[in-house]
């Protein structure tokens, strides 16, 4: 596929790996957080970690909307499907997220709830128009990339008077999450999560531009390199970060300039501002309650806001005690540090959200890296 295959080229990858190894100073350590699940997935799937020298370490960030969605929000969707009799439309990613009482949206469907998987928000609106006698709710999740399509369908529903269509909005904001990480005691004072820079979002940045990250570079003295989601994009970004660290710079650089510019997609930004407003606070799995980190539907579109329409009240629910998703999402622990990993918790039967989405740190490591952790077992298998 054009503009995909070229950015997975083996020879270019070898060259970039050699350049990183050459330029990373042996006497120092480099800790970079890839914010996005898309990057986490690429790093795991293409074995980027194996191509880096041992003193360059990648820390997985919280940029996976499925992973950070707290149990209480899924509970609201399940309540709508099972107790309010709505047609609940959702992206496939969200269906298997564990909720309260051992439930998930998929289980709710098995129990008779009308839960439907959609590819696009537009599909949910179509279902509403085809079923005028039923209430149809779209479970909207995602970062800035996924928000503009939701804004568009809300505005369309409003304009066309589709009275039976509403949205359960869980859209969250990238910059607020990065601030939360940078201000966390683990990064700021305890030093348990050393951070020398960020690999910044690809498609989120195509909407918001590179400008919002300038604050992090200036205020927190952390380099940020916006990078595409292909493995060579990630490797080139790592090389750019190594150079910034070596030269004592903390700037926003744009590796993904084939798609991203400084101002972003102004049309999409204006649309999002028209339909959504900031929430005072929103609970994130792992990060807790983060002020002004999510969007709510503006009062002008209240008729299409499922929370208002159905009088939903959010109730925080603690995660499974043994699950380490919270610490993993904050960069404190790695998937293998969780005692549920690979045993009680697998992609087939996830206990925690990081095992659900293929972008989750646990699912990515389970799918592509778990055998690397067991060299003894591998050697034994080869002998046999």
């Amino acid at each position, binding site marked *: *596929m054009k*503009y995909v295959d070229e*950015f997975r080229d083996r*020879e270019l990858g070898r060259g970039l790996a050699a350049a990183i190894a050459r330029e990373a100073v042996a006497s120092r350590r480099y800790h970079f957080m890839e914010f996005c699940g898309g990057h986490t997935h690429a790093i795991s799937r293409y074995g980027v970690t194996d191509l880096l020298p041992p003193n360059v370490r990648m820390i997985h960030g919280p940029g996976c909307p499925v992973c950070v969605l707290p149990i209480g929000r899924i509970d609201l969707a399940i309540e709508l499907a099972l107790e309010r009799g709505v047609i609940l439309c959702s992206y496939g*990613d969200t269906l298997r997220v564990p909720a309260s009482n051992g439930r998930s949206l998929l289980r709710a469907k098995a129990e008779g709830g009308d839960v439907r998987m959609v590819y696009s928000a537009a599909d949910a609106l179509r279902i509403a128009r085809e079923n005028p006698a039923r209430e149809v709710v779209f479970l909207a999740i*995602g970062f800035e*990339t996924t928000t503009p399509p939701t804004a568009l369908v809300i505005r369309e529903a409003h304009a066309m008077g589709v009275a039976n269509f509403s949205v359960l909005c869980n859209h969250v904001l990238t910059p607020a999450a990065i601030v939360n990480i940078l201000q966390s005691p683990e990064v700021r004072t305890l030093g348990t999560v050393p951070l020398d820079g960020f690999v910044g979002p690809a498609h989120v940045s195509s909407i918001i531009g590179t400008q919002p990250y300038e604050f992090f570079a200036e205020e927190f003295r952390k380099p940020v390199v916006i990078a595409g989601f292909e493995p060579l994009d990630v490797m080139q970004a790592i090389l750019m970060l190594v150079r910034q660290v070596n030269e004592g710079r903390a700037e926003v650089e744009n590796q993904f300039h084939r*798609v991203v510019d400084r101002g972003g997609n102004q*049309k999409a930004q204006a649309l999002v501002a028209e339909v959504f407003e900031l929430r005072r606070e929103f609970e994130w799995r792992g990060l807790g309650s983060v002020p002004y980190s999510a969007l709510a539907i503006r009062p002008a579109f209240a008729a299409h806001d499922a929370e208002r329409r159905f009088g939903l009240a959010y109730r925080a629910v603690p995660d499974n005690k043994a699950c380490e998703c919270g610490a993993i999402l904050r960069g404190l622990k790695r998937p293998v540090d969780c005692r549920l990993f690979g045993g009680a918790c697998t992609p087939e039967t996830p206990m925690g959200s990081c095992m659900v989405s293929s972008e989750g740190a646990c699912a990515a490591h389970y799918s592509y890296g778990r055998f690397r952790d067991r060299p003894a077992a591998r050697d034994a298998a080869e002998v046999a």
Partner: protein
Amino acid sequence: MCLAVPARIVSLEADEQAVIDVGGIRKRVSVALVEGVAPGDYVIVHVGYALARLDPQAAAETLAAMAAAGLEPGALA
């Protein structure tokens, strides 16, 4: 979740829709979120919506910089 793929616009249709080609597969998506796209342009498609245009010149520059970094010590990335 933020997964998006580069796709070529084959034709523009009514109601801000377009037919795109992704590795030989054709699909109808919305171009309501991007301005001034034309057949032949590459766009980034996410959940049925084109979000941004892909600049072929910039893509070529990025690939050239990657190749340069692998060849010469200290080459510009």
